[in-house]
């Protein structure tokens, strides 16, 4: 074969000869990033997901800055305070309060905006922590094999023996219910997820001939792991990260809903849904709007994850090749 197939999937050695008329177009992008982006963009829904997630993230950043540094002055200057019970409780949606007011007379929209902060903060940090611990661990285990792999993977097996949320509940129960501990708990829960994927990817990457070439050239183990193996494991890890972001947002909301997460008065979406659950028939908006916020945000991350997977997965593109 004189090249790889047009869509860039690894076609393997070519015995299929004429079947694939290869190398029809040389992608102009050197890194494959643009190629990935093109594939991603082809999914209209994935782009929609990206927009949703960007908006929620910006809202989250806004409320974080406003809350931590500006004493809520930003939001109160243009809207209502998410904390002060200033209005009639249990008012339905209106021009003044598009999402209505809650049991204490606080504006639900203002609280929903502030709720983005915790969701994004927890999900982003927990997944980042998990990815940065789990991925190298998995890659090293996959590449080195032997005792290192046995120890890492058996530990992962044990951790994966717990249903994720149950483990998270156990951890926050032991650590205490606050923001940091929720992040730590979810981080710990997701480390093995990354390790597992990283290890299986690294295992297959380690069988590639360029890794042998690196060994034959006498490169050091860190060089091989971090320059040859790890960069080629990124794609599935990226997909995993975006999907776990979705899970993490639901997990954080679930903990909050159960009262085992970030405690009041900090508004979180899960907690708001829980607050409204007693007023379901009389004031459904209290639960419905923050719940919808969770739904839309999670949907956004799932769309991104699917888009990335399709753009990066050679099997999908195999359908398009000829």
């Amino acid at each position, binding site marked *: 074969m004189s090249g790889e197939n047009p869509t860039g999937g690894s076609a393997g050695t070519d015995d299929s000869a004429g079947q694939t008329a290869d190398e029809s177009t040389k992608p102009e992008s050197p890194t494959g990033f643009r190629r990935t982006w093109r594939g991603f963009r082809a999914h209209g829904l994935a782009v929609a997901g990206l927009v949703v997630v960007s908006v929620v993230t910006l809202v989250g950043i806004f409320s974080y800055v406003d809350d931590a540094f500006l004493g809520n002055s930003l939001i109160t200057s243009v809207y209502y305070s998410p904390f002060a019970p200033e209005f009639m409780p249990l008012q339905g949606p209106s021009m003044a309060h598009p999402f209505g007011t809650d049991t204490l007379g606080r504006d639900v929209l203002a609280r929903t905006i502030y709720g983005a902060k915790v969701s994004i903060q927890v999900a982003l940090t927990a997944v980042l922590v998990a990815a940065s611990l789990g991925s190298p661990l998995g890659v090293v285990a996959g590449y080195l094999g032997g005792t290192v792999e046995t120890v890492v993977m058996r530990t992962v097996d044990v951790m994966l023996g717990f249903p994720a949320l149950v483990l998270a*509940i156990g951890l926050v129960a032991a650590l205490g219910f606050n923001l940091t501990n929720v992040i730590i708990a979810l981080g710990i829960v997701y480390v093995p997820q990354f390790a597992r994927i990283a290890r299986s990817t690294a295992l297959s990457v380690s069988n590639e001939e360029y890794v042998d070439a690196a060994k034959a050239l006498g490169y050091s183990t860190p060089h091989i792991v971090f320059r040859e193996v790890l960069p080629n494991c990124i794609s599935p890890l990226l997909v995993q990260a975006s999907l776990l972001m979705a899970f993490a947002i639901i997990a954080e909301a*679930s903990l909050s809903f159960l009262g085992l997460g970030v405690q009041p008065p900090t508004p979180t979406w899960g907690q708001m849904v829980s607050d*409204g659950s007693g007023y379901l028939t009389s004031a459904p908006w209290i639960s419905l709007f923050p719940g919808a916020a969770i739904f839309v945000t999670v949907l956004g991350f799932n769309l991104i994850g699917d888009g990335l997977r399709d753009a990066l997965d050679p099997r999908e593109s195999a359908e398009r090749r000829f």
Partner: protein
Amino acid sequence: MRYRYIAIRLLQTVPVLFGVSVVVFIIIHSAPGDPVVNMLGIEATDENVAQIRQAYGLNDPLYVQYANWLGGILQGDLGQSLTQNRSVTALIASRLPATLFLAVASMLIAVVIAIPAGIISAVRKGSASDYGVTLGALTGISIPNFWLGLILILLFARTYNVFPPGNYVPPSEDPVAAIRHVALPAITVGTAFAALLARQTRSSMLDNLNQEYVKMAKSKGLGSRKIFVRHALKQALLPVITVAGLQFGYLLSATVVVEQVFAWPGMGRLIWSAVQQQDYPTVQGTVLVVATLFVLINVIVDLTYSYLDPRVSAS
């Protein structure tokens, strides 16, 4: 070879279960604060505390406590609840059936909906039904179950009185009522599960339809129905089984939350109240039991897989 495979798979679970128990023990014992003080309240005298500590063996070194606990587990004794005057084993025994009933009902609903949906979606790739299934599945995995539960209650219990809003009725007492009562919680738990299964079914079916052996079957002159059923479907459902097993943990996680929404007296509520009340022996016991259940289900799934896939047991 098959028996050897089974033996290896079973033996492999022993260290995993052992590890699970160690993790549970470590987590619970790393909790800050004194559970005894918490239990007795701030008015507790030092003597009282010391007495209780002695009684629960809390003065022993950790590994002795672990060994005692593990020894107890092996005899079916998970310790004594700190808040209720019952053994943890008895508490779990009273709650487990409700959770299992809910889990099985959810699973059934999910399987019945998801697998046909996934197949149709793959076979009619690009059609309206494919888009419908794909979007539905996406919605299913994105919707937070507690919120979905509330919406279902609002719609089907409060607004239209179709199903009762939860409340467990043991199927042994009144099967019809049990099914009516489990309907909403099971739909809530099953939605995300069904979505995951449908996605997996679709992608693995598509995967198979692209295989060379499907072309081969076509070249023999087989009709498309036979090709789908014989050459793609069985093969495609194998990974679905594995995913179903792995996602059983998802199901168990979901029940913890959903039981709260529907006031379902299962393991989830037990864990929740024990955590709230810092009843550590109960937390420890229930988490252990749930995790063990999950591990065992995965073993069963693996063994089923090996039975169905001729390649596993031979290699």
